[in-house]
């Protein structure tokens, strides 16, 4: 029952029509990126870190870039890192990629249920990890393994978690890659989207309440920036001037939904900062030096009590969303091949080569060494089992940590779980 007049009954008013965004390219389509409007490297001004937020707002519609076509670092955003730091950053990104490749294969071999690579996006986690202090608290989404690797978390521990084996520090409770490491100031990954954003603000507010010097940083995908939590976080951060760095990793795709479903047809994600009156930067997310420089700028600003910065990292998800996804079904394979911002590892490598600080041979040798290192870590982790092969944490741990103390009803349920096990396998001993 409706009393709304039918569309044709309103005189000469045009019928309303719903806009449903559609990406430019679908499988098989020829890709043309000429209209992306990528500005030249080095052309963007670098405002003072303590400037009025509004001074950054033109940069929300621009793109901070440092590495140019000739692989040289140019312009005011060049962080002027020494070659040793550049090589360490390159190595960490390459290690992240080697790790991803091996874990992806491990999932295909049935060693675990699930994996997510960050291929093509390594700079958006590794470079910020280099720019932040090691004890700044990070609230990652699910594709920032580069932070943990940069902070020296042991690969074997990561693999134990991915295998949910008996050595898994998270006791086999979390989906693979949902790491947590308090010692590395790396907040437990949720798996629910965007919830980490207001939490990062709360942590930053606490740091400010206590007169601490540490700041918080958080990551979100462009797709989940549509969640209410994103806007809650930006509102609170703006209101309380929280010392937090917000990263939006715009990798163009949220599983099969292109960025248009999060609002990209109308403006950039960095431009969200404008409405909240906080600082915002839009950076070439495949340019490790630009990402480093933007993070350093935002971190210094936050530490100077100048409040939050929103950084959009413009990048491309080179592979599927996860091992459960095949992008061939919804996007053109040419997108990756033609991506105008290239590959972050190759770009940093060519920069080091151009500086005379690195060679193709050294790079090939490093890749071999890193692959071996990951392989060795995998073998080590497999000693403690892979998913579904019995070497998990004791049954009783399933009921622990729901509360600080085990309540009576959970103790009863634990006894039942163990009884069921004994009924099925009378010889079972734990």
């Amino acid at each position, binding site marked *: 029952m409706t009393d709304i007049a039918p569309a044709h009954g309103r005189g000469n008013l045009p019928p309303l029509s719903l806009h449903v965004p559609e990406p430019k390219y679908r499988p098989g389509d020829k890709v043309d990126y000429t209209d992306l409007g990528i500005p030249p490297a080095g052309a963007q001004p670098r405002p003072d870190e303590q400037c009025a937020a509004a001074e950054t707002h033109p940069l929300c519609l621009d793109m901070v870039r440092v590495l140019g076509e000739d692989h040289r670092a140019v312009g005011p955003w060049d962080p002027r890192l020494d070659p040793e730091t550049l090589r360490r950053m390159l190595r960490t990104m390459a290690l992240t990629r080697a790790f991803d490749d091996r874990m992806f294969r491990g999932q295909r071999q049935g060693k675990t249920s699930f994996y997510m690579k960050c291929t093509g996006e390594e700079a958006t986690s590794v470079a910020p990890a280099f720019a932040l202090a090691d004890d700044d608290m990070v609230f990652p989404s699910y594709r920032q393994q580069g932070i943990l690797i940069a902070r020296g978390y042991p690969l074997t521990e990561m693999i134990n978690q991915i295998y949910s084996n008996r050595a898994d520090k998270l006791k086999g409770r979390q989906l693979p890659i949902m790491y*947590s490491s308090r010692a590395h100031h790396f907040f437990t990954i949720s798996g629910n989207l965007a919830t980490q954003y*207001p939490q990062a603000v709360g942590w930053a507010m*606490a740091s400010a309440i206590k007169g601490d010097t540490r700041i918080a940083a958080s990551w979100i995908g462009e797709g989940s920036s549509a969640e*209410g939590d994103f806007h809650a976080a930006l509102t609170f951060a703006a209101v309380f001037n929280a010392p937090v760095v917000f990263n939006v990793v715009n990798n163009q795709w949220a599983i099969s939904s292109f960025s248009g479903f999060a609002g990209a047809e109308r403006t950039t994600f960095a431009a969200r900062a404008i409405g909240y009156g906080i600082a915002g930067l839009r950076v070439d997310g495949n340019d490790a030096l630009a990402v480093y420089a933007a993070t350093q700028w935002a971190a210094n600003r936050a530490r100077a009590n100048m409040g939050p910065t929103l950084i959009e990292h413009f990048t491309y998800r080179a592979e599927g969303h996860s091992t459960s996804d095949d992008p061939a079904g919804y996007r053109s394979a040419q997108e990756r091949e033609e991506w105008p911002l290239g590959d972050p590892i190759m770009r940093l490598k060519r920069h080091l080569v151009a500086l005379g600080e690195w060679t193709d041979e050294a790079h090939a040798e490093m890749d071999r060494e890193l692959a071996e290192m990951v392989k060795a870590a995998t073998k080590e982790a497999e000693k403690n089992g892979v998913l579904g092969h019995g070497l998990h944490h004791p049954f009783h741990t399933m009921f622990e940590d729901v509360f600080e103390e085990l309540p009576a009803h959970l103790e009863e349920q634990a006894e039942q779980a163990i009884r069921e096990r004994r009924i099925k396998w009378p010889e079972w001993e734990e």
Partner: protein
Amino acid sequence: MSTIEEAPVSLHDAPSKRMNMIEAINDALDVMLTRDADVVVFGEDIGFFGGVFRATAGLQKKHGSRRVFDTPINECGIIGVAVGMGAYGLRPVPEIQFADYIYPGMDQLISEAARLRYRSAGEFIAPLTVRSPFGGGIFGGQTHSQSPEALFTHVAGLKTVIPATPYDAKGLLISAIEDNDPVIFFEPKRIYNGPFTGYYDKPVEPWARHDDSAVPEGYYNIPLGKARTVRHGEALTILAYGTMVHVVSAVCAEKGVDAEIIDLRTLVPLDIEAVEKSVQKTGKCMIVHEATRTSGFGAELSAQVQERCFYHLEAPIERVTGFDTPYPHSLEWAYFPGPVRIGEALDRILKA
């Protein structure tokens, strides 16, 4: 009964003051803000103004605006930042202005606060206490009257606490704040000023004339998970919490029913031992709550009593609840499980 009269002996000599529920809650917050530098209190209108129910009156002035402050109108943000503050090491006590407004924060409560300890194997915890007035009887209409406690008791990892007296409100709130797990602390707003008996057409007695309004000064706590036997009796056991504790007490007094009335005080953890012992003694069990009936906490209580006391039961378990409708404005007393509905159920169960 082992579960009653748990007030520490030392308190018998402590000076006490007559307080209503609001004053007792305010006092608990003041005590904890004073004792623990990590306690922070925040929410909509709670700072300078002191809260729409005045529960935080004077706290900002005394403890400073960095520890007691207003927030944006955003419950997702209020709970979300509380989780982050907990991860830092603070002990946040956010207020949600009405329980009816808590839903935008549900994901942060259910998926985050309740699971941090589990999913991080104890690396991160969420020691927050979410205070929120709940329940009807103040002509609040459908958005200022709900009793959503069962939504929270269904979540593994959350504790749900509901005081019924000023004495309990202070002691339980202090325990909730000190607890290292997330606690939902629902305050029955109908009894903020006096123990409402369900006779809405009669004047409400102020707390000052009620025994349980004598609140000791300073610090004391009442452990979570311990029920309180309000009245010992033989005819039947009545399980209630919040406002309904006073309503059933008044109805039983009026009808001269020798009921054993148990105020659960905390729904999770539940003092099932106290319930079991009483029902096994009386052989009859009536459950009373203001919340809607279907899948209400009464359903859980009824199931557990049946599982544990079936062979002691001499009558079907009675559930007296609100109706399965939104809380109506003009007909709020038709919704409320008042003396008539309770009386009818009492007649039924006592005749059985």
